[in-house]
Each structure stands twice: as structure tokens, then as C-alpha cells.
């Protein structure tokens, strides 16, 4: 039985039509769709840049691009992937799912929702237009360290304003999510009954509100250093270049949790569904997520151990970094315990979630290794680091997002996706992602620095393997596009309301696809319906 549908027939199911439906949309589903399509597009743009990088690194010597352009590729690849692909994908999923999961008709602030989306294409136009400017696109790394970043040509203010706009968009999205969850929960939907995806998103939203302004402040200081004669980061004027790194990573470390927490939330929905068993340790999951978020504000300097901090500082950040492994471990153990003695099936969303479980954990292990300060003096700024953060970002986060897409796609479109294609997508992605990133550990340990366009000949073989993995991974993602297009066109078996045998939650009480305004009559939530 569906609450929304009955109600919906009564009044407005007249969706706006034409381009206006999208430009002026205030509907959480349409905006969610736009976020997701935008994210997928940026994923391919950022991916194309990664292909340029891997092509140049396929053999020693400079073959295709000059070193400056190579640096632009690494820099813009990272910015596009982080701010253009992963973050918007997370917000897109939140838009689609949170109102349905808490039993609301829409987001709390629909107009702001529209604006926070439409800022994004604008911000990325600013960023990508720098490729055509005097001095080229940003090439000082996504971390934008001065003084190097200040050597950028005309593109610098465009980079800075793009970052400002992205921050603005994220903060608006975060406020909206918090307002929705705090004010629009259905009767009986207490905080400790919220689905974990909603929980991880509230915590992410608070992280966004706390962290994004710090980044905005930091880049504004870059702007005034370059154009208005300040010397925040210039030692000659009494400033300190390392100060920027502190500011950046005070944003940057919470940022990595902004990226990963929604993915944790997604697999916390999926693993119970396909294990046909309630999530193990719901409360400890919530507390672990909150402690990770809290601790994430006290570990930033582990990204900059080599700048030369006092011993006490190095020790503090080493201990804090090691401490964050504890709540992270709790989450991994809880997911494992959820599968334990379950009755598992392995549809595509479950496969991707298990992929997250294994490969995120692997990235966590290397994170722990890097947290040991004296050893990080060797690892830092090598391919070992590149391996670490790609394990947490790609099979850890992107796989989580993809799992969510497969999980809810039948709900969104009303038809089941093609399971065979989904399985192909999973296996090709999983094999290639490991061929792509695992050897990077070896390269880093053997001494290959990161962010270099050319290398000593001893590194050739493993780089070739990595590049082959990269291209295979890139091509594998086309399968996802194919799957999504098929569903969007309505090709596939009709999906039931519950979609999956083991699925629980309010979103699965609505029809597939759900009505334009999700719940117009609030559903009633009880302990039994919330945690089962």
C-alpha cells in the first residue's frame, strides 16, 4: 500500500514539462536526477584527464603532453573528480532518497535546492575555461599550495571563484538536508530510527558546514596575496606558506569523510537487505560515524608531516590518526557481523557493497601505515599515497555510489536494471581497479614520487600494467551508462514496490517509480518497521 500515490491522484500530478521542468525545478527527484547526471558527466571528464595521465606514463620519456599540461591534468582531474563527480553524486542520492526515507513530500527548501544545483555547472565552466587562458589551467596540484599556485597565470582568480561557488553550493545543500531531516520526519521516525544513509548524511552535512568556509577563507587569502598586496603566505612579508597547508587540510581531512560517509551509509542499507538480516550494531554505527567525524578535525597535519613540525605536534597528529582507525574498524566489523549467518544473495548492489568492504578496508590499512609518522617520511608524496587514496576513493567511495545507483535504480525508474550487465560491470571494474591501483603500492615503495610526468626506466613495467588497468577501468564504466540508459527508457522487467526481497524502509512502501511528491500524507513509523 502506498501513501503518496492515492494522495497524488487527488491533486497536482501535473509535472512541469519541457526545459522549464529542469531549469526551474523545485522537485527533489528531478534535482536529484540532475545532480546524478551532472556527476556522471564530470566522472567521464575527469576520467578522460586520467587517461591522458596514464597514456603519458605508459612509457618513460615525454610522448604526448608537455610537463606543464601534465600537471594541469593531475590538478584538474582531482578537482573535477572530488568536487564535480563524488560530492554531487552524494548530494544527488541524498536528494532522491532522504525525503522518501524520512517520509516527507520533498526537501525542506526546494528553491534553495534548485540554486545549489545550478551553481555547479556555472562553477565548472569557470574552472574548465582556464584551459583556454593565458598561463593555462591550474597546475599546482588540487591542494593549491602557495607559493606555487600563485605562479598560475590568468586562471588563478577563476580557480578561486570556482572553489567559492562550489563551497556555496555544498553549504546550501547541507543546510537543506539538515533542515529536511530535523523538521520533516514522519511521526514516529525518531533519530534513532533513521536509516543509516540518512544518519551518515546529517553528519556529512555538519562536516560540510564546518569545513567548506575554512577552504573558502584559505583561497581568499591566496586571492588577496596575489592581487591586493597581502602576504599571508609569503615569508618575505612576514607570512608563512605552511599556514596555507594547515588551513587547507583543516578543511581537507574532514573533506575526505564528507566524501566517504555517504558511501558508508549506502552500504549500511544494502548489506542488511541482501543478507536478509538487520544491520548489526545500529547504535554503535551511529556513534562510530559521529566519532569519526569529530576526530577528523584533529588529524589534518598527517597530510603534512614533512613540513617540519615540532616533535610534540608530530606525536599528537600521529596518535590522533591512529585513534581514528578504531571507529573505522568498528564499522567494518559491524558490516561483517551483519553478513555473518545471514542468507545472502549477490545481486549487483550487494557485489559492489562487498567490493567496498574489502577494498576500502585495504585503503584503511595503508592509511594506518601512513599514520606512523616516521614511516610516512618515506611514503609521503610517493605513489604509495596515490595508491592509498585511490583505494579509499574509487573502490571505497565510487563503488559505494554505484552500489546505491543499482540498488535504487528500479525504485527511480520502475524497471529492473539488466542484472547480467550489472554483474559484468562489477567484475570488469573490480579486476581492472586492482590492476590499476595495486601496483602503485610497489611503485611508491620503490621510490617513484607522485605528480611526475616521466620516470626512471626501472619503473616502466609496473607503470604499463597500471596504465592497462586504467584504460580497462575507464572502458568498464561505459557498461554503467548502458545500464542506466536502458532503465531510463523503461526497458526491463517491471519493478515491485519493495524491489528487493529483503528491502525495508519507507522508500520501499512507495510505488516504483514513486509519485512526483513523495509522501503527501506522512506515514506512521514504529520500532518494528524501522529496524527490521
Amino acid at each position, binding site marked *: 500500500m502506498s501513501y503518496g500515490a492515492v494522495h497524488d491522484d487527488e491533486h497536482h500530478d501535473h509535472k512541469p514539462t519541457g526545459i522549464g521542468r529542469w531549469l526551474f525545478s523545485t522537485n527533489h527527484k528531478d534535482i536529484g536526477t540532475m545532480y546524478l547526471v551532472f556527476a556522471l558527466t564530470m566522472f567521464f571528464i575527469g576520467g578522460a584527464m586520467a587517461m591522458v595521465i596514464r597514456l603519458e606514463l605508459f612509457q*618513460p*620519456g*615525454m610522448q604526448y603532453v608537455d*610537463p606543464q599540461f601534465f*600537471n594541469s591534468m593531475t590538478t584538474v582531474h582531482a578537482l573535477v573528480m572530488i568536487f564535480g563527480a563524488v560530492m554531487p553524486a552524494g548530494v544527488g542520492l541524498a536528494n532522491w532518497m532522504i525525503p522518501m526515507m524520512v517520509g516527507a513530500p520533498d526537501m525542506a527548501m526546494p528553491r534553495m535546492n534548485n540554486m545549489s544545483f545550478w551553481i555547479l555547472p556555472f562553477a565548472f565552466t569557470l574552472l574548465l575555461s582556464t584551459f583556454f587562458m593565458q598561463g593555462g589551467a591550474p597546475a*599546482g596540484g588540487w591542494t593549491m*599550495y602557495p*607559493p*606555487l599556485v600563485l*605562479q598560475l597565470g590568468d586562471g588563478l582568480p577563476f580557480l578561486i571563484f570556482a572553489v567559492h561557488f562550489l563551497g556555496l553550493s555544498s553549504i546550501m545543500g547541507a543546510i537543506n538536508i539538515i533542515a529536511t531531516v530535523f523538521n520533516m520526519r514522519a511521526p514516529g521516525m525518531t533519530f534513532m530510527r533513521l536509516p543509516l544513509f540518512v544518519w551518515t548524511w546529517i553528519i556529512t552535512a555538519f562536516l560540510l558546514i564546518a569545513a567548506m568556509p575554512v577552504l573558502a577563507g584559505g583561497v581568499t587569502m591566496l586571492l588577496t596575496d596575489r592581487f591586493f598586496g597581502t602576504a599571508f603566505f609569503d*615569508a*618575505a612579508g612576514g607570512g608563512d*606558506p*605552511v599556514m596555507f597547508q594547515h588551513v587547507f587540510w583543516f578543511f581537507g581531512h574532514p573533506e575526505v569523510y564528507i566524501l566517504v560517509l555517504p558511501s558508508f551509509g549506502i552500504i549500511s542499507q544494502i548489506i542488511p537487505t541482501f*543478507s*536478509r*538480516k*538487520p544491520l548489526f*550494531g*545500529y547504535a554503535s554505527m551511529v556513534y562510530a560515524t559521529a566519532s569519526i567525524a569529530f576526530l577528523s578535525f584533529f588529524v589534518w597535519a598527517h597530510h603534512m608531516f*614533512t*613540513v*617540519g613540525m615540532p*616533535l610534540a605536534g608530530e*606525536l599528537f597528529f600521529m596518535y590522533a590518526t*591512529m*585513534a581514528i*582507525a*578504531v571507529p573505522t*574498524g*568498528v564499522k567494518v566489523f559491524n558490516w561483517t557481523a551483519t*553478513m*555473518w*549467518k545471514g*542468507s*545472502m544473495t*549477490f545481486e549487483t548492489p550487494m557485489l559492489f557493497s562487498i567490493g567496498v568492504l*574489502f577494498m576500502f*578496508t*585495504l585503503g584503511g*590499512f595503508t592509511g594506518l*601505515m601512513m599514520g*606512523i*609518522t*616516521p614511516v610516512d*617520511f*618515506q611514503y*609521503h*608524496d610517493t605513489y604509495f599515497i596515490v595508491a592509498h587514496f585511490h583505494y579509499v576513493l574509487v573502490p571505497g567511495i565510487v563503488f559505494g555510489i554505484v552500489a546505491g545507483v543499482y540498488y535504487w535504480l528500479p525504485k527511480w525508474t520502475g524497471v529492473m536494471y539488466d542484472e547480467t550487465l550489472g554483474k559484468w560491470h562489477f567484475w570488469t571494474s573490480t579486476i581492472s581497479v586492482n590492476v590499476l591501483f595495486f601496483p602503485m603500492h610497489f611503485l611508491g*615503495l*620503490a*621510490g617513484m*614520487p607522485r*605528480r611526475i610526468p*616521466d*620516470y626512471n*626506466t*626501472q619503473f616502466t*613495467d*609496473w607503470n604499463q600494467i597500471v596504465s592497462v588497468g586504467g584504460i580497462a577501468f575507464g572502458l568498464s564504466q561505459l557498461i554503467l551508462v548502458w545500464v542506466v540508459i536502458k532503465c531510463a527508457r523503461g526497458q526491463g522487467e517491471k519493478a515491485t514496490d519493495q524491489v528487493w526481497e529483503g528491502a525495508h524502509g519507507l522508500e520501499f512502501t512507495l510505488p516504483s517509480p514513486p509519485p512526483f511528491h513523495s509522501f503527501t500524507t506522512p506515514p506512521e513509523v514504529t520500532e518494528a518497521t524501522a529496524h527490521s
Partner: protein
Amino acid sequence: MSVDKLKQTVLGVVAVSLFLASGAVFAGLADMPLNLTQGVTETSQRVYDLHMIILYIVTVIGILVFGVMCWSIFHHRKSKGAVAAQFHHSTAAEIAWTIIPIIILVAMAIPATKTLIFMEQTGDAEMTLKVTGYQWKWKYDYLDEGVTVWSALDQASNEARQMDSGIDPNTVENYLLDVDNPIVLPVNTKIRILTTAADVIHAWWVPALGWKRDAIPGFINDNWTNIKEPGVYRGQCAELCGKDHGFMPIVVHAVSKEEYAAWIEEQKAAALAAADGANREWTKDELLAKGKDVYAANCVSCHQANGNGVEGLFPPLNGSAIVNGSAADMIGLVLNGKNLMPAFKDQLNDADLAAVMTHERNSWDNTAKDIIQPADVKAAR
């Protein structure tokens, strides 16, 4: 031949060729170590030991956790008739998997703290080397001896790494890991190494010494090393520092104390000879010959071999108003730098500067064709 036999043969052939192929791959991969170096200092050995301990710890945890996951995946599946249990928490388990990791982490933190404290003991060094990062080379000052060495990518690598150079990097020995002037350090000596930079942040890293440290403009970082074995140790800049970040290697020759003392004397003599050169009149041919080399070592990375620069970043020297204008203006600019152009007054001596400017004024389509004498440069300082 039966179908089964055929199948067996085909499988056999496939298996053998896969085996051979993987053997070939690993033979080819053999020249690259797969693990962190043990290095040649006590620091690097301690760091290596810590790396191995933590690697073993995470491997054991990994085997346990992944083992449980795999067990569950294989046995608790619906297709095997598994029926889902309905438990959803266990306080005992949750406490256990919070406390046990804490114990492991504390056990890990103790040796890590000891090593870190050991690495920070920069006192009572027997000599001091100051390392300054420049875009894109290193300057080494032996502070106790007054000796300075400039060290940049060697000529052979530099030529091979140009786009369309037509040179196969595999034919260049130590491709990208060799420099024109390696530095020499004595073994069994506690050496204090100060790192700083002149323009942007760089990082000085020789893996065999066991650490890297940022070189930050306006600040000086304190480090030390004590090399146990003579040998040649190579490293690279490890902090993105612009266009040629990938092309500023480091080479350390560790030698006996006697050899080191001899090398220092040689350096001092060479510095005297160079200073002498600045006091005499040079012929145009002498200047042009020297200028070509100085250009290749110091200018080519930005202004390019054809003198046309890089559009939007580095202006052309070919046809430039300054290069073809008054000698005084050009000397002033090269000595003091401008925007992205570094100040060369501390980097090159009078003779080098005179030679390279003469070379530029006489190259490509430039029309100045005059000469600049070391004395002119000296006067402009």
C-alpha cells in the same frame, strides 16, 4: 583423439603459455624492488623495521577480517539454504573489537614514538650542509667549508626527456636520476642537513637516508643523517614545484673522510679559478662556447632550445626587445629576475652570466650580435 583429450591438450598449452608469460613479466619486473629500501643509515633501518612491523600487523588483521567475510560469503548464502539469523547486536563483541584494536595501536605507537624522537635529535653534528631548492635545481652550501655546489639534471637525461627527442630513455644510464654535479658526503659522520628554498616549496628526498623533508622558502628545516656505507645514493624532489618538478634529481656520493677532504680542496681550487676568470677580458668565441653550456643548464627549461619560450608562461628570447636592446637592461634583468624568472645573481658567476647573455644576443634571429664581458656584469652587481 577424444574430446576430453583435446580439451586437456588445449588447457595444457594455455597453462604452460600463461606460466611462461607470467615468468617473462616477472623477470622484466625484477629490476624494481617491491618493498621499501632498508637504506644505509640507522634511521632508514629503523624506519624499515617499523614499516615491516605495521605491514605484518595489517596483513594478519586483513587475513582474519577478510577470512571471516569470505567464510560468510561462501557459507551463509541463500543458494546453500542458509536461513538468516535475526541477532543485531552483541555488547561483548562490540567491546572486544574496540578494545583489541586500541591495544594493538598502543603497542604500535611505542616504537613509532621512539623512532620519531631519535630522528629529531639534530644536535652535536660534525658538519652542516644547507640544501636550497630552486625551480628546478638544487644548491648545496657546505657551511663549514664555504663551498657551494649547484646540482641539476644531467645533460644526457635532459636531452632524452625533451618531447620528440628521438632518444630512447632506456639507452640513458640512470635516466632522470643523474645530475651534472653530484654532492659528496663523508661516511660515518653526523651531518646536519638544513633544507630551505628560494621560490616555491620543494622536498629533498634520498630514500636510502630514510626520510624526506620539505624545503620551504623563508624557513629552514633541521635534519640529520649519518651514512654507514660508501656508495652512490639517488633521490628526487618530492614536492610538486612546477613544470620541471619531475626533473630535479639528487645524487649523493658517500665516500671515506679522506676522499671527502680531498674533494673539498678540489672544489675550493675550482671556485678560485672561476673567480679569476671574471677578472680578465674574454674573446667572443670563448664566451659563445661557454654560453651555450650555461644556457643548456640554466635557461633551456623555460625559454626552450629554440629560444621561443612557452606561450603564456615564459616569453621568447628570440627576437626579444630586451635581448636585442641595451646590454645594461639585459644584465639588470638577468641578475635580479622578474616574476617567474629567477634572480641569477647568486646562482651564476660573472663569467657564466656574461657568456650566456652573449650567447643569447648572438643566437637565433637576434640582431644585437655584440658581446658582454664579465667585467660588465661585475660592475652591474
